[in-house]
């Protein structure tokens, strides 16, 4: 009994040791800042003044008076709900470039390439692509005779957000692709071989083997999609600055503006807390839907 117990303690120590470096980094750079934000959200504070207790002032302000908050929250949710499109596209691409075909390295590189490009420059290019008068998309549409007049994509309240989402999918699809590709790599080919012997067609093989086994990767992608909806900051910042009106403002761009443009750090902190609670709830839901434990799977052998 005691041997087992000792072994168990040792194992726990080991697990603790393994988790420690990552945990320390996250506590320093995530948890403490979150607590800082949490405290700040109940205060009146600016870099120049000592803090004063504010109670729920900022939260009341946000929930009852700030209609922009609700607008950007809605935008963020729309942005997030669009992420499955990107994931599906990426899954398709990942399956294709996972096949043993010639030149797949090239295809992978091209698809991935848009992810590491600096957003500042790409943002300007996207703005031009969407431009009403001289943009490429309108030019092509007009040359093909679909329209007579350019469509003001980014200047339209209804089209601006979808346009930013398309650009964002363009940027992030390569990222999804490699995460999914990693998942596909984890599937032992022997499973396919035995399934093929059993006479399963490719759709059945996909449904019965591929999909269940890459569930963890899909979970990661969904989480990334959620995160992306509030960290995809640069692209919005460069392409539209949240405009027109607040049509493309996301929570994060709004928080950043409130904090650093308007020096309302206390209010931004309250927004941060709400943002955090909301998205944590969603991530936990995703965790639950994917079978708990960040989408763990047991390989059946």
């Amino acid at each position, binding site marked *: 009994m005691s041997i087992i117990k000792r072994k168990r303690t040792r194992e726990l120590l080991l*697990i603790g040791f393994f988790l420690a470096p990552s945990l320390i*980094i996250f506590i320093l750079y995530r948890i403490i800042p979150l607590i800082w934000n949490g405290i700040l959200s109940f205060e009146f504070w600016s870099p120049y003044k000592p803090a004063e207790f504010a109670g729920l002032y900022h939260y009341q302000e946000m929930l009852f008076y700030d209609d922009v908050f609700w607008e950007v929250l809605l935008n963020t949710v729309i942005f997030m709900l669009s992420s499955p499109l990107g994931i599906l596209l990426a899954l398709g691409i990942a399956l294709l470039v996972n096949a043993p075909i*010639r030149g797949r390295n090239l295809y992978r590189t*091209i698809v991935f390439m848009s992810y590491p490009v600096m957003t*500042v420059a790409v943002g300007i*290019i996207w703005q031009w692509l969407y431009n009403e008068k001289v943009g490429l998309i309108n030019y092509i549409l007009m040359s093909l005779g679909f329209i007579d007049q350019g469509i003001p994509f980014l200047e339209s309240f209804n089209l601006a957000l979808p346009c930013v989402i398309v650009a964002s999918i363009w940027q992030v699809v390569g990222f999804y692709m490699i995460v999914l590709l990693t998942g596909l790599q984890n*599937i032992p080919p*022997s499973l396919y071989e035995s399934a093929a012997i059993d006479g399963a067609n490719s759709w059945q093989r996909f449904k019965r083997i591929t999909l269940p086994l890459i569930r963890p990767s899909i979970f990661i992608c969904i989480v990334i999609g959620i995160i992306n909806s509030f960290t995809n900051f640069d692209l919005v910042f460069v392409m539209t600055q949240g405009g027109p009106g607040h049509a493309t403002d996301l929570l994060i761009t709004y928080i950043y503006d409130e904090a650093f443009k308007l020096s309302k750090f206390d209010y931004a902190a309250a927004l941060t807390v709400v943002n955090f609670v909301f998205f944590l709830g969603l991530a936990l839901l995703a965790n639950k839907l994917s079978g708990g434990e*960040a989408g763990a799977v047991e390989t059946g052998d």
Partner: protein
Amino acid sequence: MHRYPHWPFHVTLSTICALMLVPFIWVLKTSLTGENIFTYPPSVLPQDPHLFYYVDVWYTIPFFRYLVNSFLVSLIVVVANIVFNAMAGYALTREFIGKKAIIILFLSCMMIPFQVTIIPAYLITKELGLLNTHLGMALPVMSTIVCIFVFKASFDAVPRSLIDAARIDGLPDWKIIFKVMVPLSQSAIATNIILAFIWSWNNFLWPLVIIRDQHMQTLPLGLSRFLTVVEDTTGALYAFCIMVLIPGLVIFLLAQRQFIAGLTTGAAKG
């Protein structure tokens, strides 16, 4: 394996790639001609392309110095990421009390965007005495949750029988990781290398805030030199983007060769 025609793959992938490349072609073209993007009608082929904007970039900022700094920081980040994430990822494949709590903690850490942590993170880094250092730039991204989960997924996929066999052989845990799990998780390592490198390489706001010394600046910070209001530096701006992009692509090309289906079983024999 199975015989099927390859051409539908090529057709589909070529179409996708062509679409993906459109914005990129303009980046490349502008870096070679410096032309006005807003010219109408748009032209696909560059006129009088030349490489001199790249020369401009090299000399207008201390490019080499920044390159070395970026490289050092990324090296720290990549190595730390592989080690720390593999360790944490392995821990999460084991059963222990509070595992659920740790997973939730990790998930919640992901939900805190970097932009809202700037001020406290700065103060913490100041307390640690790491302002203006490579390590200070690297520290916040030395372990990343996405990659921990990538590792966890890969480790989970390692056949139980293999681990049990190793354990019966009396191998301690850390040996199991580095002798059984890691060799079987090559694609996870590759993903880690690629992502950690790119995140660190493109990191902009954090180095901007904590670095005051000219000699410690990293490449993305050179960007502002090409966005001044009084002179047109379009060509140099895009050339700069390409130059910053290339190392990331090289790393991708090198690491992605690990993505070869069938590795798991192949290695399982040994």
